[in-house]
């Protein structure tokens, strides 16, 4: 559906050209929800704007629904208004001089010249989809943040575009509304079966909504995978850090025994079942998620190998307890069920669920 190949764009700054998007390629199948995830300045928004046609890439090719909309080789650049792509902006970009109805009707009246008798019907349908059907006559400035968000979404989908682009649409909402809108957004996308590209720096949003997530850094795509794989099998330190606050323990890969891998660390030896990177003898990171660490008062209770440790600090968060555990000069985070309760200073035994841990590449190793 959407094919991006070798996309390249740089910006001139006072310090010379900066590569905003550095030869990236990806494909989004029909009806899929695809997220570009990364810290600010990683090139995700520029990528999105190149797809939209609002920014002009220097090299590469972009195809939407089989049609080339940009190609540096063939010298094709279709202007944004001819691409039939819907887009929701970070600021929502609701036109303050029009009411709710007119905002949504604009793409139909201007973009497609839909006969007048259908405009009303289509606008009502789009407004109903986002539950704004009763607010058509409201001035657009007179809406709450969540309503403006819905309005922007209705406007983007009203003319049934081939592709929907979302540029950090939830970043201006408060947390509760954000959760709600996340579900809404996904529902609308699924109802319409719209191929969607979503740009965000929030891993929760990316993981919860997407079919596929592309993690970006410094203009490049680091990893493209389904959310579960991204979370459980990050390919390197950057992804592991960015996605899940994983505990990363530096060490050396010493042996491969059967289906497991042994990592020697200054704090002891660890075993795990997954190898993303490295060969025997190389410096690696041992990645373990907070929820894959278990705490016991007695080593004999544990099924997995582990280390003696001390509880430094804990915060009770309702559904779970967040512990900071120290092993020598190493501090690890563990997230455990509230039924297991220790106090700060308690000696504990921690164990790693080795089948859920992995060996990954460090950024500087």
């Amino acid at each position, binding site marked *: 559906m959407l094919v991006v190949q070798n996309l390249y764009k740089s910006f001139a700054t006072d310090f010379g050209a900066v590569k905003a998007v550095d030869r990236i390629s990806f494909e989004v199948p029909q009806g899929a929800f695809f997220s570009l995830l990364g810290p600010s300045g990683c090139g995700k928004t520029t990528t999105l704007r190149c797809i939209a046609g609002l920014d002009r890439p220097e090299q590469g090719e972009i195809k939407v629904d089989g049609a080339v909309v940009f190609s540096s080789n063939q010298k094709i650049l279709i202007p944004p*208004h001819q691409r039939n792509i*819907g*887009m929701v*902006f970070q600021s929502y970009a609701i*036109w303050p001089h029009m009411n709710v109805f007119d905002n949504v009707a604009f793409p139909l009246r201007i973009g497609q010249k839909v006969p007048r008798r259908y405009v009303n019907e289509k606008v009502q349908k789009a407004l109903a989809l986002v539950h704004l059907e009763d607010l058509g006559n409201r001035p657009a400035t007179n809406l709450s943040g969540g309503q403006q968000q819905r309005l922007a979404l209705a406007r983007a989908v009203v003319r049934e575009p081939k592709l929907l682009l979302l540029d950090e649409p939830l970043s201006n909402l408060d947390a509760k509304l954000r959760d709600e809108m996340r579900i809404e957004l996904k529902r609308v996308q699924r109802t319409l079966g719209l191929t969607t590209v979503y740009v965000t720096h929030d891993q929760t949003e990316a993981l919860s909504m997407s079919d596929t997530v592309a993690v970006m850094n410094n203009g490049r795509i680091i990893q493209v995978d389904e959310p579960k794989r991204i979370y459980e099998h990050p390919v390197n330190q950057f992804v592991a850090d960015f996605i899940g606050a994983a505990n990363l323990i530096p060490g050396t890969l010493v042996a491969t025994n059967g289906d497991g891998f042994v990592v020697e660390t200054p704090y002891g030896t660890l075993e795990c079942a997954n190898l993303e990177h490295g060969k025997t003898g190389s410096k690696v990171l041992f990645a373990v998620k907070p929820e894959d660490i278990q705490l016991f008062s007695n080593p004999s209770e544990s099924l997995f190998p582990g280390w003696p440790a001390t509880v430094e600090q804990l915060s009770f968060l309702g559904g779970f307890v967040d512990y900071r555990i120290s092993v020598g000069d190493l501090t690890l985070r563990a997230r455990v069920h509230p039924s297991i309760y220790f106090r700060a200073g308690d000696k504990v035994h921690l164990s790693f669920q080795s089948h859920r841990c992995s060996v990954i590449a460090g950024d500087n190793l």
Partner: protein
Amino acid sequence: MIGWILLLGPENGLINVWIKDLFGLEKSVFNIFTMTGMIFVEGVLWTPVVFLFMAAPFRSMDPSLEESAYMSGASVAKSFYHITLKLGLPSVLSVLLLTFVRAVEAFEIPALVGIPGGIMVLTTEIYLKLKTGLLPQYGPASAYGVVLIFFVSLGLYLYSNATRQAQKFYTITGKGFRPRLLDVGKWRCATTGLVLLLPILLVLPMLVLLWSSILPYYVKPSREALSAVTFANYVSAFHSSNVLGALKNSLFISIVSATATMLLTSITAWLVIRSNIRGRWLPEQLASFTLSFPSVVLGVALLLTYLKLPVPIYGTIWILVVAYITRYIPYGIRYCSPGLLQINKELEESAQMSGAPWGVVFRKIVVPLMMPSLFAGWIYIFLLSVRELTVALMLYSPGSQVISVIIFEMWDFGKTGDLAAFSVSICLILVTIAAMFHKLSKRYGLQI
């Protein structure tokens, strides 16, 4: 303007006469025919224009920007200085620049106040060098012109430097903004005084004009004088046919020039700010170029140009339309640029994504959102065109007289009564037009 001379003139200025009577003084206290008098009148005349100019950007500023300053511990005055004023900097600077430039090249007040008082400024020197004596002295006049252009260009240079980082100053976003009123609290008296001062300064000379317009000859207001009240001045002022013709000409020229200028400049401003066409800086520089030409110089230049060019507009009112458009394009741009800078780019981009080509985006999104600035600019240019004297003096011909020329002639011939009556009528007409426009702009402008 002439109202102030009637108020503060050393011989029979109304305020002077009153103060003399009150304190039994021999000499007049105020003399308008001085440097101070000139500065005062010039300043007062520019105040409403500056106000108009400043109102639009401040009106559309997001109040949370100020409120976050209060919450950071800044007093009202401090947050006004550090936030409001600095956010409004592009607008404030552009107004400052315009006022400076206009004051440097002002001709009318120096001509009416300065020349009788023997105080010369560059523009009056140029005018006198060209218009008095046996032959026009082009040499000295050009030299003065160059000096003038230097000062004006300096102002322009500073301005362009200061606004280079204009990106920072987006204040209208797609999010709802709700400007809030400030509770002035104990400052109520002071602010009320300030707010009232402006109208008083403006109304006083109007009143004295009104007074002299209904008297056959000028005397200070008294009970006896009331009995002599007559409307004869109005009848005689409008008796001559060229007065009505001039009125029609003035309105026509001003409306056409203002409309054409705002249309042209809104497109130019968009090209300069939003597009990345090569050479997009050119229109603004060109437009600023005419800004650095004083009216006197511009008047002569236009006169010579259209005498030579095979465009048959010389001797018609169209030469004045062309002249005013040329003259006021820079002002139009100065209105449009800040207005456009305050519109978040995403508002346009979302229209593009909705399938609107450039022309439609401009017509349906940019123009309506710029309406407050466009309206303000239109009124400004309209009023300037109606009042404009210098260029008109040089370019008018018998069929194409305009109001300002008629008033100047009446002053020259000492027909104070006719002049007062005519001025009062003009003011009424202008106020009506401005009020109608204000209403319109409320309807079509941003509903804030």
